[in-house]
């Protein structure tokens, strides 16, 4: 009984301190404005456009570009990843197939997953497929 009271009072103090902190730093975690939405959309579209440029330029050593086989990023199927890629023998993420293309038809070096160029490529590929339902694993 005494123990429980002590727990209660400690929790109460923590709660009060947090509330005071929240007010003093004016944290508003779940509120965003129309301007925020517009900004985030612009930020995303800037990366999509960067990805579109990369997708249409030579990323490897032989001047071949992604769009030569994938106009409008068609036939890349971002909605089906991750999926089992029988030639690789395991479930892969989309960036791994992008790297496969950079290394083979484009005869270039693979990009790290978090490379801004890779993120731009994935943004463009996915944007061109917007509205299509997710079907992870589908071949």
């Amino acid at each position, binding site marked *: 009984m005494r123990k429980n009271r002590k727990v209660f009072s400690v929790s109460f103090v923590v709660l009060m301190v947090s509330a005071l902190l929240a007010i003093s730093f004016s944290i508003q975690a779940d509120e965003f404005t129309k301007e925020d939405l517009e900004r985030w959309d612009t930020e995303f579209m800037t990366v999509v456009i960067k990805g579109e440029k990369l997708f*249409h330029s030579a990323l490897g*050593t*032989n*001047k*071949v570009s992604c*769009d*030569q*086989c*994938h*106009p*409008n990023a*068609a*036939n890349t*199927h971002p909605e089906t990843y991750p999926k089992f890629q029988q*030639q690789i023998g395991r479930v892969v993420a989309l960036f791994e197939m992008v790297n*496969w*293309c950079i290394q*083979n*038809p484009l005869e270039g070096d693979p990009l790290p997953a978090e490379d801004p160029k890779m993120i731009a490529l994935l943004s463009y590929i996915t944007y*061109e*497929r*917007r*509205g*299509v339902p997710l079907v992870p694993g589908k071949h």
Partner: protein
Amino acid sequence: MNINRRAFLKTTGAGLMASTFPMSLVKIAFGGQGPAQDFTFGYISDAHIQQIQGNNFVRNWDMGLIRAVREANLLTPRPDFFMFGGDLAQLGKKEELDHGLEIMSNLRGKVYYVIGEHDYYLDLGEYWQSKIGPLRYSFDHKGVHFVTLNSILTYDSWIHKKWGSPMDRMLAMARLDNPNGSPFMVGEEQLTWLKKDLEKVNRSTPVVVFSHSPIQKIFKPWNFWTQDAEKVQALLKPFEKATVIYGHVHQIEYNQIGNITFHSVMATAWPWPYPESYSQAASCLPKLTVNMNRADPFFERDATGWQFINMHNGKVDVHYQLPDNKNRTVVFNSKIGKPQDVDYQDYNSQIPPQTHF
């Protein structure tokens, strides 16, 4: 035995040790069926020879054309002639056209050429005409009238707008998904020429038109399209037997519009997705077409190929030669007046790789 031998030939790049190509299931010409005789011709298209620098060219595209030429050289009996369907070069450069022609020079037999947009938009066909010949012409062969069109022209205002350089124009047209591209067309001047050319031809003479773009409207965003297609179709309408064979689309397509049968040919370089794979725009792929198999990127030559064509009773049977895949055959069925795939036309015989999404 036959299957093993075929598989062997396919994996060794058309075994040069073999004296005959295993699928010479060509029906040889027979006489006495009216003035048009039966014969065969070969069709190679869309090689997209691409220069990297100096004497360095993209190996993958080189290999596609080299392989097609090697395999076509094994055809027995020899076809009467070959057609090249356009896009010999990637960016219309002299070096690319020269390199492509050098590979093509190994092909045994007479070769006719159709010009593609990748050959044209750097110098507007100047080098092509000096090395290969005119951009449009017609000829007669064994009772069939053949016409080659330059169908990749476009609006003069687009061709002659203020480009930074001719290469900028070439790059703009070479980009298939360019939102600022311009639709292909035959053009009024050439339509007048075609009208005159066809006036001399008897209405019962079979006519075959070679073009780079489809003389039908399938998908405008990628120029699977000819803006004045209906005007060409109208000129072909009076003929009992008319066929159009086109490249550009890098995929199997076939269609029937009135009296006109349409067949596409494959690229030796790379396949293109069917327009239905682009979810942001509607397309009109002919309902009749049974798609080629979805390409397996791990096999470099998959979903590329070349074809031999059997001219039979004035109509066309297309035999698609597809490395790393099963060959396809699309024949004209005179009973129903439409082209049909001999194995896959029936919905129940179609296979999962033919579904594209």
